[in-house]
């Protein structure tokens, strides 16, 4: 490889590598710093910057993990993620499949209706009224799942992917006697793994990070999701809420390292799922987006 490299090429390679490395470090360092801060003992001055913690103390993690709120939040977030992702994938794929068929009557019309929702929404108040008063979903798990069950964007991507599957495959299945449903389940779904993984991952990350709908629709303490619990921990030490602390609290709470460990606890679960779906993920995004 290096035989034919000119001086310019090598220079370019160095410049590119160095700048990418710097970019990489600037992305990773905040996360590293968070880990370091979360491990700091309460006897270490917080106003200093550490590259390695002077001493490692898991006290903060113990405090975080001992709080019952974290488990309630964790359980709710997992329930929401599993239920929401499964339903969302099923609905998205089963809707994208017919839309990918050229012989679907009024195909452009149905597509237009879906695209319409990408540009126009009902606004916060009508949505709130619909979910709380009309559908009466307050403090139920459906309030987390149903309102955003279908994402128009995911649907379009999935439709594009499915229309790239050669129709000859379906025809041969039909010759063998398979009906529409059997064709879909046994031929199409196995071929669509990349797009299913992509949609699932996007939905899962979205559901994991979302907190605003929980704030609106599920205010009961036993319905708190993990991100809400985390938000509360982080907000508690910010300047606008501090007036509400007693001198005792101010003295005993060590907000920064507690916050850091809460953030780590809330982020790591979704972070470790990435490597497992990544190989499908990249393929799904590429294939889905290329054909229109």
């Amino acid at each position, binding site marked *: 490889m290096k035989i034919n490299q000119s001086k310019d090429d090598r220079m370019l390679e160095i410049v590119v590598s160095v700048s990418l490395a710097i970019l990489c470090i600037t992305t990773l360092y905040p996360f590293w710093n968070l880990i370091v801060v979360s491990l700091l003992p309460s006897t270490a001055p917080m106003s200093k910057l550490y590259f390695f913690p002077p001493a490692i103390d898991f006290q903060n993690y113990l405090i975080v993990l001992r709080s019952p709120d974290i488990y309630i939040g964790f359980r709710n977030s997992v329930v929401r993620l599993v239920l929401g992702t499964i339903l969302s994938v099923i609905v998205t794929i089963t809707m994208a499949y017919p839309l990918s068929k050229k012989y679907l009557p009024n195909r452009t019309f149905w597509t237009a209706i879906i695209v319409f929702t990408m540009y126009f929404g009902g606004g916060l108040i009508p949505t709130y*009224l619909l979910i709380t008063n009309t559908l009466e979903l307050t403090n139920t798990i459906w309030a987390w799942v149903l309102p955003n069950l279908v994402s128009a964007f995911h649907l379009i991507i999935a439709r594009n992917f499915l229309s790239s599957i050669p129709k000859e495959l379906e025809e041969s299945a039909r010759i063998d006697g398979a009906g529409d449903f059997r064709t879909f389940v046994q031929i199409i779904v196995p071929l669509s793994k990349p797009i299913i993984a992509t949609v699932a991952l996007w939905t899962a990350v979205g559901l994991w990070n979302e907190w605003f709908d929980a704030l609106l629709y599920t205010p009961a303490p036993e319905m708190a999701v993990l991100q809400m619990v985390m938000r509360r921990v982080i907000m508690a030490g910010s300047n606008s*809420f501090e007036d509400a602390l*007693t001198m*005792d*609290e101010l003295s005993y709470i060590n907000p920064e390292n507690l916050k850091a460990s809460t953030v780590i606890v809330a982020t790591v679960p979704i972070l470790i799922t990435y490597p497992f779906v990544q190989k499908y993920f990249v393929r799904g995004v590429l294939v889905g987006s290329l054909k229109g």
Partner: protein
Amino acid sequence: MNAKKIIAILLVLMMILGATVGCTKNSTSDIKDQTAESKTEVNGEPKKEEPKEEKEKGPYAKYVPDENKVYKFDIVTYIREPVPDDDDIKALIEEKFNVKLNLWNLEQSNYVELLNLRVVSGEIPDMFEFSGQASMAPELYRQGVTLPLDRALLDYGMPNAMAQLDMQKPGWEDWCRAEDGIMFKLPDFNIKPNQQAIIWRGDWLKNVGITKIPETLEEFEAALYAFAHEDPNKSGNKDTYGASTTVMQPVFGAFGAMPFWSFGYEKDFSNTWHIKDGELVFAGIQPEMKDALAMLNKWYVDEVLDPEFVLGENQGGYWAHTHPFFNSKIGYTGHGAVYHWSPPMHNEHQGGPNYKELMLIDPAIAESYVFGVAPVGPNGKKGVSGNPYINITKGAGFGSHLADEPDKFGKLMQCVDFRYSGMENSRLYAGEEGKHYTFKEVTGWDGKTYQLQLATEYGIEVYPRSAERVFRIFTAYFPDSLSDPDLAWRKFMNFGEHIYVNQLDTILPSDAQYANELVKLTSETYYQIITGGKPIEYFDEYVDIWWKNGGKIMHEEANEWLR
């Protein structure tokens, strides 16, 4: 018709549908109509015709609650953590008053937004706690969501609470009136005086031969120059400065205006207005500020100011930490509020966050810093930013529907009044002694014995949380009880006596259009003049730009509001 036309019609239909969905049965206009009626009802209430037998019992007979009825109250409070339905303190309060409570768990950080959403969707609580935005309470009143209040009725319904209010702040009613003269809320107090910290390195003062804490602007300047040039840390090098970002506030204060909000926003200029000669004026354009800027510019040129002062004193982490002061780079700071710098309040207290942090970095610094006073300027003015005693963003109000249910309102007033009828009664809301709280005797900073009320769950004194804020208007204060060494300390130190506050307690119609731009202009101009990027004469040009770019409109609107 072809497909395209059908689609176009459908799209239009859907948009209309979407726009009207929010305006069905529970729209805001409905609320307005409903409450316009109830408002008139209440305004003329005591004089209104009443059944004869009620008249005999006095005008407030209809406010006597029905003993056999279990009232159900919807209450929204500014809570830190949501209250579960089976909360035991909640149960305790319900039992005590024979009522049912429905507490709205609205997240603190989006309190205003969430409350407005609920109100717009037609849900109105019986009792409100206002928080987060000064304009919230007047807005709700204007929309007819909250009940107009009548002092005579309140005196009848909650005499203890009213007596407490009069004791804590005589004339509080003036802070709670809308433009029509009607009282629309009850006030909440910043019971603990609070202001921006004024902190000197005591050992440095000693090293440069200053024995008295600077009181005038000249003494203030002399101390800062000595810190910068007379080697206060005895290192032999020029490695110190007088002060950094937070020196701006006492200097501006000495000249008579404060273009800053409270602490926590130390380097961010703000849309602050003062009343001057009966007129609201924008703090940033006051002519005295020109002299203040000239002084700061001189300090900058003479290397008395930290050259990095534009960046602010906090470099990440906990917001009240000041890195240049912690690292012995500067000898004066005003970063954070007084409570961040408080020494241990009693024998088991570790001190405020900054004291505690300095104890970890270098106990010598923690032991040596001293609280100063705001320097007196050439015209005798002085002060830093602080909290006024009446907390304008807070307070309590009642739902306007209570006008139609006088007995329920009467019951609600009874429940509220109980909290203010003595120290013992006020403890009901903290739960049961032994179960939810215990008492602990400590020796305070002043050597006196204090009775601390500790939450058993945490083992420390905590701010009332969750159900404890039910039926609360403001913090009760019983002067005889030695229960709060912190309050005693703040009163002893005379904090909050010389403070500047923003006297424009509202949101102007033109704020959205101009306020941010003009504050940005102020901030840029000030920093540029101090660092020498623009000559001091540029200040006049800035004032001119300010007036021409929306300042005039804001000034007019502000003074209209004041009248």
